[in-house]
């Protein structure tokens, strides 16, 4: 039997034991404790992989929701090509197959000196290492007239779930010939190609069901991720359907009038039948409460371990962290979590963490059968994560239908395997 086989077997055994809480630890005193905040891309991966690298460690994952709906592929829900159920995952395998204690609760405080966290439900949990992956929060104050309450009628849909369902419902209810306004945020934000994939998927729906309609993208930026590829795809798939207005041409939305269903830029106003405002972003609230953020609202970390540069023994992953050239993507959060998990296990065993190499692949769909991608392999230095020169990059321009059909297939392959890697 291979070494790997032995360990995997052990993991299964240890996992089963985790479920039988009355069995005492054998021999070596209490197991080291790792607590993870957040069951999304970063947190769920970290919890599973601390166990994978270090079956002897006691891992608790705290997440307020019973299930997690992924933002990846939520644009396909808007396009009517996937259901919300098909992108929703639970934590049953986490608890039953991987031996992670799953606590359904919200962390409200981190007591750094005492090395413990407190939950809304009144629990106190001690840790040796804490891993924090709370995702993002919105800076509603950056757009006049927009806040969490208005978002119940003018959705952001930048956290998947009810917001996605609401935006889909509005698209279904819209008359043919209507205007859909999408207002993407300034950098940095979660999923740089996301707003433009969203425009594509909404266009896919409109083209088939409401062909006289239009999409108006009012952008807070002058360029965006995969711009050449999106523009090429829009031209061939949706001629005349999508208009993009950059910030330099007065694209930036400053004010929302929810009653009049109008958005205001510096010089103009635009009326929408469906409006999707994606506000500027900051690290998830608990990162602020725990004092893990810098003056820009994101969390600085040591690059080889994702340990906070502000507080010892607390690691921050995913969208909330500053991972230099790595984008705020689910795939990036996943690979960062593996690096962090390996580092935490190494440190708890008194070893030196190994030097990480991370990667990221982001597929976007222009139609269900037309995919594009960007990928990179990253190396770490004192300056942070830098993509390997001469590798990675975008899908080539000018490729034919066959190439893009394959990339669409691989996008679905990526989704299935990534979801299994994290919540399976």
């Amino acid at each position: 039997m291979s070494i790997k086989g032995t360990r995997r077997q052990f993991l299964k055994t240890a996992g089963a034991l985790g479920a039988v809480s009355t069995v005492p630890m054998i021999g070596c005193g209490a197991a080291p404790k790792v607590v993870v905040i957040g069951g999304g891309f970063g947190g769920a991966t970290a919890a599973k992989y601390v166990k994978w690298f270090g079956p002897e460690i006691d891992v608790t994952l705290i997440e307020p929701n019973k299930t997690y709906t992924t933002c990846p592929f939520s644009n396909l829900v808007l396009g009517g090509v996937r259901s919300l159920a098909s992108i929703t995952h639970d934590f049953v395998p986490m608890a039953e197959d991987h031996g992670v204690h799953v606590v359904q609760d919200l962390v409200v405080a981190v007591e750094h000196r005492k090395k413990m966290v407190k939950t809304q439900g009144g629990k106190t949990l001690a840790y040796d290492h804490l891993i924090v992956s709370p995702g993002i929060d919105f800076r509603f104050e950056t757009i006049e007239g927009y806040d969490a309450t208005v978002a119940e009628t003018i959705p952001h849909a930048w956290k998947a779930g009810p917001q996605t369902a609401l935006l889909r419902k509005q698209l279904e209810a819209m008359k043919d010939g209507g205007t859909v306004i999408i207002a993407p945020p300034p950098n940095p934000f979660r999923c740089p190609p996301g707003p433009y994939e969203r425009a594509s998927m909404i266009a896919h729906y409109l083209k088939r069901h409401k062909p006289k309609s239009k999409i108006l993208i009012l952008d807070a930026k002058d360029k965006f991720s995969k711009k050449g590829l999106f523009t090429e795809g829009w031209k061939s798939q949706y001629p005349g359907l999508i208009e993009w207005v950059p910030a330099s041409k007065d694209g930036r939305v400053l004010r929302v009038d929810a009653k009049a269903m109008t958005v205001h830029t510096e010089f103009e106003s635009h009326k929408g039948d469906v409006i999707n405002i994606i506000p500027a972003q900051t690290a998830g609230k608990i990162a602020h409460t725990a004092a893990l953020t810098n003056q820009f609202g994101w969390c600085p970390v040591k690059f080889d371990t994702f340990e906070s540069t502000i507080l010892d023994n607390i690691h921050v992953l995913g969208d909330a962290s500053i991972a230099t050239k790595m984008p705020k993507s689910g795939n990036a959060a996943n690979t960062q979590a593996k690096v962090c998990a390996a580092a935490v296990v190494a440190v708890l065993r008194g070893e030196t963490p190994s030097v990480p190499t991370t990667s990221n692949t982001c597929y976007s769909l222009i139609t269900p059968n037309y995919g594009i991608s960007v990928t990179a392999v990253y190396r770490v230095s004192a300056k942070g994560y830098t993509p390997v020169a001469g590798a990675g990059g975008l899908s080539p321009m000018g490729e034919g239908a066959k190439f893009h059909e394959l990339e669409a297939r691989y996008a679905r392959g990526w989704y299935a395997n990534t979801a299994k890697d994290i919540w399976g």
Partner: protein
Amino acid sequence: MRTHQPFRFGLILAAALAVAVPTVSAEAASKVARADLIASNCFNCHGFEGESIGVIDGLHDMSAKALVKKMNEFRSGAKPSTIMKRIAKGYTADEIQAMGRYFESLDNK
């Protein structure tokens, strides 16, 4: 492992664990293997531990030699691809060897 384990079974597992601990500690001492960490980069598209459930090929049954050969062919363009050329070029020969070693070590050949 999704059903509840009767307590007796738990005890048997506990006994198994007691035996397993020294083996695992010995392996633990071999460091959190860099090969595992680097190979885990492949799991997003090719499946957890290389077992794919989607349309993308799995890697769990590949020998180290076959994986290295394929990666080199992607790199040079000898084997056409959509994305693998871009990815293969990002890793060093040592890293590709390490990935190969990891998938070869899986106990399912």
